[in-house]
């Protein structure tokens, strides 16, 4: 499956605006945020639409305050979210460790990736992959990471992110990129929905929301009790890995010559490039992880099983490739990437994949240019 089907109004706007339409439809009542390219318009759309729909928006002094306010609103029982870039996610990491990892509050963060360490580039990147999928803060914790490929899916997965966050009591990251942020497309979302506060069970007099920690006396070193909490978390993450991993495969049925593994906007470019690669005589398919954590290892493994060559494509120096490596049990045969905030045209994408294929299989080298 790739997308949830909405039955609401047809709209035409950017991905960033679609996020807020989706949040309203999902019954999100609270938004706090700080501007950062390329996610700023999400905050601005919230500032426009949240008050009009009787919701609360707080433009905070920074990402740190924003994520803490989101946690506070979530503790108050309401669906709450923020939006940022990987740069801002760095600042939010501490809070996510506390509130997603430890306290297990639900919440949603939309992260629009731009490339580079530090201030980096303003163009699209996918180098926030490791940060997002490894639990960006300290300690053993994971967040579900959803990777939409177009504006409709960005909207759909934003709605679904709230459901997943509630179901598993954690934060869900919707990991987009600069292209998804600014691309204007047609999309359909449901009308804004009110959602009453859920009951939040505090642990009375225990210091933490976690009921297991009620009787834990840290200073007495009750590590056995803390380990029981750790084991429960371990089981929760294992259940998510078992039940929520999701990918989409498209292109030629197996056996094939080349399998491309890519996600997000780059997967969409890859999808369009499939026909250009096919015209040169290669049987080709794309497997696109929709959840980055949990990584859809089984789907990638079975797709790779039928392919002579596996090529991973990323807008980074290679981050998802390690997960593909683990999934298929060997280093992927080829890797194509773009850096600096630059994304390829479909022609360039096809050329680079064929180039890589020709290097790997000189006996079957494809001739001719991509048209």
């Amino acid at each position, binding site marked *: 499956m790739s997308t949830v089907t909405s039955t609401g109004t047809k709209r035409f706007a950017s991905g960033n605006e679609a996020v807020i339409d989706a949040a309203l439809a999902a019954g999100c009542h609270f938004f706090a945020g700080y501007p950062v390219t390329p996610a700023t318009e999400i905050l601005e759309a919230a500032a426009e639409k949240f008050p009009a729909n009787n919701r609360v928006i707080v433009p905070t002094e920074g990402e740190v305050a924003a994520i803490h306010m989101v946690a506070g609103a979530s*503790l108050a029982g309401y669906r709450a979210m923020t939006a940022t870039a990987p740069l801002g996610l760095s600042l939010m990491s501490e809070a996510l460790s506390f509130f997603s990892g430890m306290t297990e509050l639900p919440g949603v963060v939309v992260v629009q990736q731009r490339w580079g360490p530090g201030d980096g580039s303003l163009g699209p990147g996918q180098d926030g992959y490791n940060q997002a999928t490894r639990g960006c803060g300290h300690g053993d914790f994971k967040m579900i990471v959803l990777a939409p490929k177009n504006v409709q899916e960005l909207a759909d997965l934003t709605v679904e992110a709230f459901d997943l966050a509630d179901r598993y009591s954690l934060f869900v990251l919707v990991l987009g990129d600069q292209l998804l942020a600014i691309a204007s497309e047609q999309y359909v979302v449901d009308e804004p929905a009110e959602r009453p506060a859920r009951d939040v069970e505090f642990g009375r007099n225990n210091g933490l929301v976690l009921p297991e920690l009620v009787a834990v006396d840290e200073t007495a070193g009750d590590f056995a009790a803390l380990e029981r909490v750790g084991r429960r978390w371990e089981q929760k993450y294992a259940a998510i890995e078992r039940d929520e991993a999701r990918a989409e495969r498209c292109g030629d049925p197996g056996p094939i010559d080349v399998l491309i593994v890519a996600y997000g906007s780059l997967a969409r470019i890859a999808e369009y490039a499939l026909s250009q690669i096919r015209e040169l005589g290669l049987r080709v398919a794309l497997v696109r992880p929709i959840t980055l954590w949990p990584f859809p290892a089984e789907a990638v493994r079975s797709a790779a099983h039928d392919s002579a060559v596996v090529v991973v494509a990323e807008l980074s120096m290679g981050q998802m490739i390690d997960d593909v490596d683990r999934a298929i049990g060997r280093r992927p045969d080829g890797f194509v990437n773009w850096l600096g905030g630059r994304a390829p045209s479909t022609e360039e994408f096809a050329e680079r994949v064929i180039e890589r294929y020709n290097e790997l299989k000189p006996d079957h080298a494809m001739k001719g240019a991509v048209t």
Partner: protein
Amino acid sequence: MKVVAEPIAEALAPHGFDFCPGCGYGSVLLALTDVVREMQEPPVFMVDIGCVDFMTAHMPGDVLMGPHGRTSVLASGYKRMQPHRLVCAVQGDGGFMGLGAAESLHTAARGEQITIIVLNNGVLADTGGQLAATTLAGKATSTTPDGRGPQHGPPLPFLEMLSLLSGVAFAERVAIDSALGVRRVRRAIAKAFEVQRSGAGLSIVEVLSPCPTHWRMDSVQAWEYITQSVRTVYPTGVLVDRTRVEATAHDQGHDE
């Protein structure tokens, strides 16, 4: 002898205090518990990390512990969505005035409708008594063994700075250096909650609290140090009161 404070059984549950002998935090907890037990619905507490987090197990209401220094914004987020609940952030000076200074400042600037109780013991006590934003000049700590010098800057007058902001409806500094001081802690906390109820803005109570362990003093010396040194840098009293809310009836007629 006149009894000024009785131990409150519920504040001691589920096990004894983890505070060092002579620490002022237990007194603040008792004062807070005493104020809260007269309320129909207890406040929601957000407790910072530091020695204050030893209070979490004893808080007279629902508690969430948040990351160091960010408790005021966590509490603000809750309050925005539950405007009818009383919400109280309890922080130390390290978190409130040091690491979380930006969050504290902007919480005050926005005039969030919460109450913040800041326990100021002049050191980063939980980690072993290191230099804090509030350490007095010349005072030796484990990271300033020769005393706080000019290179560390003077102690930060954070409450004075916040009092300039119109969002701060009430700010009072009290000191645990006498039985009367302990009583004033209770009165200030009660007043702060009244201010919150009135919707006038942020209410802050800063408590100068002794830390004999890291000040390397006995309990009596620690009280004297507050009276003679700390209060000269951090004067006690009401810094700002933009409300007309009277102290609760319970407090009227006592002292002063």
